[in-house]
């Protein structure tokens, strides 16, 4: 059987299994020389073949493969560099995040959602490095937002004051304000109060949607009146998220929804009645 077929077949089999079986398959693949072939494949002219090699090497946690992946951070293709970074980020001996950001060219390039995955690997073991990215104002906004999102998923509360500050300072119509509010909702810490209440009063539709979502997740009872007011907003998403948030507030929110369903404006009446009916809470 041709070497390339053995390599591809082995990689496919490894992807199919988990746990002890996967470890066994990886051991067998190493005995068959698969990592050596993948390392050679990294020098291919074809972008596809290099990408397959990087994704394959991610499965082998040996020094030579790691060395090869580190070299690949200098590849001419940005997606291959990102794939190599993701592979390295999963391992135990990961390079510094600052070094990765520099070598990936994230300071100059567009950002993929995969950067969130990359930062998540670091958020658990090296949260300080992710926090440093969030606070580095020289970085593109997309990279800082990806770092915030990764930190939010990890549930690390230490960044909350910094994100609240960023949220309060962000211009009303900016792209980043909803993302800050979304991250605050994801973390779900009550210290986000000021930014969330300010977000609910924003003129920006995405910001109000994100703020309503955050108010519900944090169960911010103080926001009930503002949320009830937003049930009459012209935008459907604002009305929907506000009604959803009111339901998340429990009795306080349900009372507001029932009031809106009975005596609110036309849009508020429809939103409140439909959401109550949807959850089986219609009077």
């Amino acid at each position, binding site marked *: 059987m041709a070497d390339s077929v053995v390599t591809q077949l082995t990689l496919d089999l490894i*992807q199919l299994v988990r746990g002890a079986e996967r470890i066994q398959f990886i051991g067998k693949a190493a005995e068959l020389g698969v990592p050596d072939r993948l390392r050679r494949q990294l020098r291919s002219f074809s972008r596809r073949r290099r990408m397959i090699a990087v994704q394959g090497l991610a499965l082998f946690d040996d020094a030579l493969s790691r060395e090869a992946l580190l070299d690949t951070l200098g590849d001419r293709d940005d997606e291959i560099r990102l794939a190599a970074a993701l592979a390295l980020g999963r391992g135990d001996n990961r390079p510094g995040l600052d070094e990765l950001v520099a070598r990936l060219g994230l300071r100059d390039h567009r950002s993929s959602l995969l950067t969130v995955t990359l930062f*998540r690997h670091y958020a658990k073991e090296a949260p300080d490095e992710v926090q440093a990215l969030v606070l580095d104002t020289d970085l593109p906004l997309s990279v800082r937002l990806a770092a915030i999102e990764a930190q939010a998923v990890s549930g690390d509360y230490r960044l909350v004051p910094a994100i609240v500050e960023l949220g309060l300072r962000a211009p009303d119509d900016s792209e980043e304000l909803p993302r800050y509010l979304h991250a605050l909702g994801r973390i779900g810490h009550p210290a986000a109060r000021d930014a969330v209440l300010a977000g609910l009063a924003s003129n920006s539709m995405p910001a109000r949607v994100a703020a309503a979502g955050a108010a519900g997740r944090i169960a911010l009872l103080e926001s009930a009146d503002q949320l009830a007011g937003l049930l009459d907003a012209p935008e459907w998403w604002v009305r929907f998220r506000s009604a959803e948030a009111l339901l998340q507030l429990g009795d306080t929110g349900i009372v507001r929804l029932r009031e809106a369903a009975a005596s609110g404006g036309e849009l508020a009446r429809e939103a409140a009645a439909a959401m109550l009916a949807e959850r089986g809470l219609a009077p």
Partner: protein
Amino acid sequence: MISAPDWLFRAAEIVTLFVIACGLIQILFYIVQLLFAALALHRRPAHASTSALWDRFGDIAPSIAIVAPAYNEEVTIIESVEALLALHYPDFEVIVVNDGSKDATLQTLIDHYSMRPVARYHDRALAHQPIRGLYAAPARPRLFLVDKQNGGKADAMNAGINVARTPLVCVIDADTLLEPDALMRAVRPFIDDPARTVAVGGTIRIANGCRVEGGRVVEARLPRNFFALMQVVEYLRAFLMARLGLSEMQTLLIISGAFGLFRRNSVIDVGGFSADTVGEDMELVVKLHRRMRDLKRPYRIVYIPEPVSWTEAPETAAILGNQRARWQRGSLETFRAHKDMFLNPRYGRIGLVGFGQVWIVDVIGPIVEVAGYLLVPPLWMLGLISFDYVRSRR
């Protein structure tokens, strides 16, 4: 050769030169497309297994609502819905829109899945025929059914998009057979470039002759029917050359109605699918281009070369003729509705290359081609075709 006045010779020469020029421009377009398609194929991502895709995107993949319009599908609807519900994707919902079917499509679904009427607060941004009822299946939480008055496919898709609550919506035809990992593959551009990607299309292949079980193509085979066989070649050319090349040039003007993944907000911003045209799929993509260009926002409308779905091709001349007449009409209607974009510098490459191609291939292409054949006898009679030259070249 017959004798004729000079002006007739002059007119015949002009018409002939026009026909030849159109043909050459078309060929030039195709060569450029081929080069860009080759570039795109060279740069395409490595084909990954479903489990590898899940490993990579599973935790960041945005949620998707699949909108499946159904009209008189009582025989196949359960099989189709089962196949949709079994797709490999972390977070998705199937919204079946019963577009006022005259058969028992609605009751078949209700009975099979024990569906119950429910309330669901939904958007009303897109216009469509009134909704008669909304149904959910307690045992199948991913499934949702919209029953509405008949209004056509575009109308049904608008209703489904209104009811959807996800950032992405996938619109398909009722008879589309999806690959199990179609969503995982099609979502990739939204992951790679989330800020700019607004729509993604994928390769559609012909299901005639294939072995289909449970709404899935389990073995790809060539059709035995001649018309379907020719369309296999045609589809490969259309998707792997034309659409791939146009996507690489960022001038893709159509995402097939059989499978398209769209950012929901962008579709709503342009008013959804137009119910007054038979080319609603092309028209939607053109509206997306127009809006993003008008707003001067960077954006991408992308085609991925991986096969994502299968469709039944017409097997008789009459049905094929009807389908092609509908496609042609759709192109012409879209061109007419957006003719101000044609060669308009404000719309950049869309106006120049995208609409240029539609004009040369779809608008005047058929006329020129037929004229080319019809002109051969009169041109020969005028002595403007040299058969001696043709013979000497052999």
